[in-house]
């Protein structure tokens, strides 16, 4: 086994991982950084983010507004001190990215332009056409090349952390091209592996989004926080789940049902006006919009398509020229994948799983309860998303907290003595034997794809937009069954070079653990909040009992243990979440009562 000695090892080469790597390199050029990614960094799923990144820009906007939109959007399950820290740093980070070359869209006088997104009082979404994540990721990747201290391990698959003397001291990886193992020793470890949306059937996520880092931390005793909160994005392609960005609605798109009626006005989001009004109608938050779809479906007012019920995203009134300029990728997706010209016909859409609000429990400095282990980005739960993430906050999160994680991990690495290579090596060899066992064992009969499909289906059935105890329990039971069947999994491919079947099996095991944490956290949250909505007697938010974070603890050979942690409230006591005209009225009343 190869051994590489680093000061900081980062698992995940997407937006957060790259930003962290640059932060370590800038904080001390002498630190050796190992950046491990199972794909070449520019393939990471940050690439698929479309709409934009939030940061206060306009004089009419304020940090307070960004804070309130975020905390209210998260249904008050946010760590408010962390949100305050976050909103104060977004614009500087986005400007930093501008200095590094990100091609932000501009106003006529050359300043960075901003657009509106759902749940946002004032326009504050920085964007690069409708390929913001793509441009951010490539900018970060290309900029990272400047720093000689960043040693990349591209197409290296992380199979475990090594924990010694009660702290994380490195990782074990497989070089995909050869199938060989490497131990990367480090003073600190940053996990930045992204979300876990692919545990669900219909999702917007890329194939790599399998919750690897979440599962690794979880198995080493770090709780996964708020895992029941999984965001359904309201406008996705039927069948594949591919995303039509919220910017479609930010630019003025309508959502209509089979009668051509803008149904959102029936769900407390009105009044319907011809041009977009912030925080109203199509610019409501994602959870509300996906829930409204569900009700329309119940009422029989959706359209039946080959991949289930759909509503229409109507962009026709925006005209071809504007669509080509502001939403070029959306235009092509609709044309190529659906054969729909969005300037001439409405696009059929339905909600699909998009984002994991919860993740590895970390404090505001990205530090997990396991010393030396840090996390940033979608895999982490730093506390800014609460029960429902506001669109455009995740891309900013990658930058703000990627940087924090990098700086903190660098500081920690410098404060600790080098690890004991011999005993780390011994641990790594045990990991190698265990992981190789998955491939070398014979006589298995379960197909990976079958288990994966059943998992994804049961997650959709039990942990969808609306949830019932009975179906959630079924999902929990089914996941137990799948975990048992996984022990009998069959990896046909015994070879070493590019054995992706073996890697799929490892990923599936990660996914099953993460899925369990989601299903059990969901079952035990007996209230409705944000993206977690129940229809079995717990339809209301219950602040008395559930204004707290769930924490799922891994239990070997059993369901996770769920306990709860407090929510930090600094300046915004839980209030009513209201949008549209009702929201404006509520805000006026709140202001009047403060005055």
């Amino acid at each position, binding site marked *: 086994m190869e051994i590489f000695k680093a000061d900081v090892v980062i698992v995940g080469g997407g937006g957060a991982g790259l930003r962290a790597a640059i932060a370590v390199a800038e904080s001390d050029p002498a630190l050796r950084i190992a950046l491990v990614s199972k794909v070449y960094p520019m393939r990471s799923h940050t690439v698929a983010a479309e709409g934009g990144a939030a940061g206060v820009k306009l004089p009419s906007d304020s940090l307070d507004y960004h804070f309130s939109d975020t905390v209210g959007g998260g249904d008050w399950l946010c760590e408010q001190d962390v949100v305050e820290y976050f909103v104060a740093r977004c614009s500087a980070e986005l400007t930093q990215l501008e200095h590094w070359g990100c091609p932000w869209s501009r106003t006529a006088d050359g300043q960075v332009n901003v657009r509106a997104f759902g749940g946002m009082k004032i326009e504050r979404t920085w964007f690069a056409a409708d390929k913001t994540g793509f441009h951010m990721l490539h900018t970060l990747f290309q900029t990272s090349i400047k720093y000689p201290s960043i040693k990349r391990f591209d197409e290296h698959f992380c199979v475990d952390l090594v924990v010694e003397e009660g702290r994380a001291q490195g990782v074990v990886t497989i070089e995909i*091209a*050869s*199938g*060989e193992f490497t131990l990367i020793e480090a003073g600190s470890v940053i996990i930045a592996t992204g979300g876990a949306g692919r545990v669900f059937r219909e999702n917007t996520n890329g194939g790599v989004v399998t919750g690897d880092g979440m599962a690794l931390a979880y198995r080493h005793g770090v709780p996964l926080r708020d895992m029941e909160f999984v965001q359904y994005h309201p406008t996705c392609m039927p069948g594949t789940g591919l995303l039509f960005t919220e910017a479609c609605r930010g630019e003025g798109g309508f959502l209509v049902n089979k009668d051509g009626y803008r149904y959102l006005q029936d769900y407390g989001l009105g009044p319907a006006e011809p041009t977009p009004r912030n925080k109203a109608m199509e610019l409501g938050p994602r959870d509300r919009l996906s829930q409204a779809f569900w009700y329309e479906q119940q009422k029989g007012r959706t359209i039946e398509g080959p991949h289930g019920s759909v509503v229409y995203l109507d962009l026709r009134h925006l005209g071809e020229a504007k669509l080509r300029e502001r939403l070029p990728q959306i235009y092509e997706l609709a044309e190529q994948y659906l054969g729909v010209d969005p300037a001439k016909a409405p696009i059929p859409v339905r909600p699909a799983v998009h984002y994991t609000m919860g993740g590895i429990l970390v404090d505001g400095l990205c530090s997990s309860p396991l010393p030396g282990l840090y996390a940033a980005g979608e895999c982490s739960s730093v506390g800014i998303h609460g029960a429902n993430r506001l669109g455009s906050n995740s891309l900013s999160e990658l930058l703000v907290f990627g940087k924090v994680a990098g700086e903190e991990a660098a500081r920690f690495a410098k404060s600790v003595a080098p690890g004991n290579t011999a005993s780390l090596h011994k641990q790594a060899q045990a990991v190698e034997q265990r992981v190789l066992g998955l491939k070398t064992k014979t006589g298995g009969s379960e197909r990976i794809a079958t288990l994966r499909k059943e998992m994804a289906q049961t997650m959709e059935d039990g942990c969808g937009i609306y949830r019932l105890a009975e179906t959630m329990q079924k999902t929990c039971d089914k996941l137990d069954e799948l975990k048992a069947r996984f022990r009998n999994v069959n990896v046909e491919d015994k*070879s*070493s*070079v590019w054995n992706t079947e073996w890697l799929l099996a490892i990923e599936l095991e990660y996914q099953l653990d993460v899925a369990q944490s989601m299903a059990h956290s969901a079952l035990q949250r007996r209230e409705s909040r944000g993206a977690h909505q129940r229809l079995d007697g717990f339809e209301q938010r219950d602040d008395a009992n559930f204004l707290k974070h769930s924490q799922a603890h891994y239990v070997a050979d059993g369901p996770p243990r769920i306990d709860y942690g407090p929510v930090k409230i600094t300046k915004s006591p839980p209030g009513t979440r209201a949008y549209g005209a009702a929201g404006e009225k509520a805000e006026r009343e709140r202001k009047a009562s403060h005055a």
Partner: protein
Amino acid sequence: MSKRRPYVRPMDGWWRKNPYFVEYMIHEGTALFVAAYAAVLLFGLLRLAQGEAAWNGWLLALKSPWSIGFHLLALAAIGYHAYTWFKIMPRTMPPLVVGGKRLPAWAITGGGLAAAGAASLLLFVLVWGLAR
């Protein structure tokens, strides 16, 4: 020890594998006709310098069936070369912006072909006029 053994595919006959490459090779091949025709004209110049008899001999040779055949072939080949040359032209020049909008590729190709056609016609009319 790594079991990697990347396989490098041979490039033999690469240009036959894709119609686009075939077109490219024909384009390159037709350039020979441009060179050949330049040689014909240069030879004519040489004959002119050698006196009236030589010049008349060259003119006569041009009227032979072989020569006319060659001219027709060269016309076709050079026509094709010009067409494919203008087809690639938009890819080789900076964007042309007219009235705030980028000129589309077909307009550049079409414009180039039209200009070449017009220039040929002008030359033809001029020479025709001189010859009479």
